[in-house]
């Protein structure tokens, strides 16, 4: 706090983007809700179009909002204090994301260690098994549900292992891109960042392939709680990798335009934090969903 002179904290006088974003989220929510009902109940409607319009508007909003911020940052309006606000904001945002995944990991733990053993008669639930689900055997992964749906286990060897190595490598390249930025080695920055994006894209491609494979061998979204946790955890992780890849691509183009200096690169730092975060989630996933 020992600043010699107080650098003014930049507060924009007003901004059109939040209200645009509010309308966009409104359209997304209404569209997604209607689309969900229409898709699953086979009804006719405009849900999909409203959702699409909302997403387009959100992209427009994010572009405009960030464009403003990039200009402000490049014209030197931002103080160190503002940089700290952004960094702390990003850190707390990532914490909220961790808690979002925690809900699904929690569901996985609960199903594995409590719900399924109880359905199998553990603890004081002998009658549950005997009367309600006779013949149900509590095993994990749950390849035959109490209701009798059968599915297949996804092994960890092969694609998931390759994907783990890809993402871990990409975390390393992302780190060296950051080191390159901090030491003003722009070439290293560009190459390493491009490599990170490349690895991320391959990961996503393999993940899509893995989903097709899973559906082929009979593990689907509705094949009981094993498939549920598998698809929701890997699915939300995949969405986050997609978002992370988009962020990195934007950063790449900004790097090519000469943005970021060794001591002023909040956007880059935020993007790389995000990338490390999706990596850590994947490692958790790999152990808890695939191996154990």
């Amino acid at each position, binding site marked *: *706090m020992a600043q010699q002179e*107080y650098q003014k*904290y*930049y*507060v*924009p*006088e*007003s*901004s*059109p*983007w*939040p*209200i645009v*974003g*509010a*309308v966009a*989220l*409104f359209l997304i*929510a*209404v569209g997604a*809700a209607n689309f*969900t*009902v229409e898709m*699953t*109940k086979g009804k006719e409607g405009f849900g999909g179009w409203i959702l699409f319009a909302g997403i387009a508007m959100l992209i427009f909003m994010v572009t*405009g*909002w960030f464009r*403003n911020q990039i*200009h*402000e940052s490049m014209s030197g309006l931002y103080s160190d204090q503002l940089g700290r*606000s952004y960094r*702390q*904001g990003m850190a*707390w*945002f990532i914490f*909220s994301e961790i*808690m*979002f995944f*925690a*809900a*699904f990991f*929690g*569901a996985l733990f*609960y*199903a594995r260690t409590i*719900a399924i053993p*109880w359905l199998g008669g553990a*603890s*004081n639930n002998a009658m549950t098994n005997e009367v309600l*689900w006779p013949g149900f055997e509590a095993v994990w992964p*749950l390849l035959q*549900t*109490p*209701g009798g*749906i059968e599915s297949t286990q996804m092994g960890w060897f092969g694609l998931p292992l390759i994907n783990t190595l890809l993402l871990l490598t990409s975390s390393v390249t992302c780190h060296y891109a950051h080191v390159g930025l901090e030491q003003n080695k722009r070439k290293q920055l560009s190459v390493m960042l491009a490599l990170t994006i490349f690895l991320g894209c391959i990961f996503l491609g393999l993940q899509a392939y893995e989903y097709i494979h899973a559906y082929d061998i009979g593990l689907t*979204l509705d094949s*009981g*709680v094993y498939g*549920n946790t598998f698809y*929701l955890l890997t699915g939300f992780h995949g969405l986050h990798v997609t978002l992370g890849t988009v962020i990195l691509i934007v950063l790449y183009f900004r790097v090519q335009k000469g943005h970021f200096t060794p001591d002023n690169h909040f956007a880059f730092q935020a993007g790389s934090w995000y990338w490390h975060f999706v990596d850590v989630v994947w490692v958790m996933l790999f152990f808890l969903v695939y191996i154990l």
Partner: protein
Amino acid sequence: MSSATETLKHDAHDDHHHGPAKGIKRWLLTTNHKDIGTLYLWFSFIMFLTGGAMAMVIRAELFQPGLQIVDPQFFNQMTTVHGLIMVFGAVMPAFTGLANWLIPMMIGAPDMALPRMNNWSFWILPFAFLILLSSLFVEGGGPAFGWTFYAPLSTTYSGDSTALFVFSVHIMGISSIMGAINVIVTIWNMRAPGMTWMKMPMFVWTWLITAFLLIAVMPVLAGVVTMVLTDKYFGTSFFNAAGGGDPVMFQHIFWFFGHPEVYIMILPAFGIISHIIPTFARKPLFGYASMVYATASIALLSFIVWAHHMFTTGMPVAAEMFFMFATMLISVPTGVKVFNWVATMWRGAMTFEIPMLFAIAFVILFTIGGLSGLMLAITPVDFQYHDTYFVVAHFHYVLVTGAVFSIMAAAYYWLPKWTGVMFDITLAKWHFWASLISVNVLFFPMHFVGLAGMPRRIPDYALQFADFNKWISIGGFAFGLSQLIFLALLIKACRKQGEPVSDQVWDGAEGLEWEIPSPAPYHTFDTPPVVK
């Protein structure tokens, strides 16, 4: 594109000393913490009246035994949407509005740390509630599964408005998380030089901890509504035993969010009361440090008590015992707070202005709600009380005479600072006494009918509960009408009808917000003050 560059020029025009923009644009495009605070507060009051109107429907139906006014399905929609609106639309936005108005002024910051995101987190809220309210009009009716949306009520047995419900809750969650990130970063990063952690005003402390709770648990709510959505529409079976899931798992995940949520709605209230009582007792807050530690303890304990909402689900006895004792432990830091408030008043030079009346009512009535909570924490006793009106009495004492009274106390306490004029004291007295009496007629007899076994969320009841229910309904209508006095008072105050007030407003008030002019200028603390 041209509009984008224009706004850029406008944004880059970094001049803080002109006033607000004119007309509707001021409110739509604003980045000013005071404007956004005002928006939050008015929005929450409108939601309070909306949710209140639904409560009136509930009380009208329950005025007499038998079914007379609404059909049971609609009654269920009313209890559900009343709860959702009051929790996410009234109480939480009111506290966020107070945080917006007060935190920058209390810590000597020029604005919130992330002003544009601040606007976004407000403006998505009206849209979220537009979606929720519109779901009442879709085919098959709105959500009717209670604000806790237990599976399988919300999955197997719900209508197609469930999808709208799920996405509106997502937006409410996004709004809360962004608001909380803004608060936490503002407090962490924007304090005036010299304002060390242990010099922070209590309202700032309690909100810092509340913001942490929000960021920790709102994503869990997002997760659980997502599972409801996929269970209902996409064939997953998280909450369905046939697929290896468990409906009780819903309750675990929901209450892992839900219990910290309870403290999200009361910790800022503790902060408010810790400002008002010292002012009107003309003594510094007794035990400031212990208040800070008590708040933090309550927040940490809130993560390990969730299953006390679920004692009757058939958990193993060891779990019931753990959650019972963990819950009872919370009464220790809460007791520290109540004793500190009382000790602050002890031998103080007390005067009883309107905010103080609400604050004292808070201390007494919140304590009643706390004690009934302690009763509910006892597992074997809870077997008897679960899902009765005793529970309804308990949480309305902590939420209405607790959270809502603290919000009203805060409004009366800081309103003169915001508007520059003293509010209409006669109306305020009417509002206070009418609210105080009616709220007790409304909620106190609920303890009795609850103990006697009247179940909650049912539109009909056995004849022996008729007399009490009549009085409860009368109290309810009176409490509802009393709030219209508050509305009239607020409109008068916002139109600046009243005596101008001094900068300090109340003569025992201390803190940075009382050192700036009344009404507070549009921009305050462009350069931070130095706190000694």
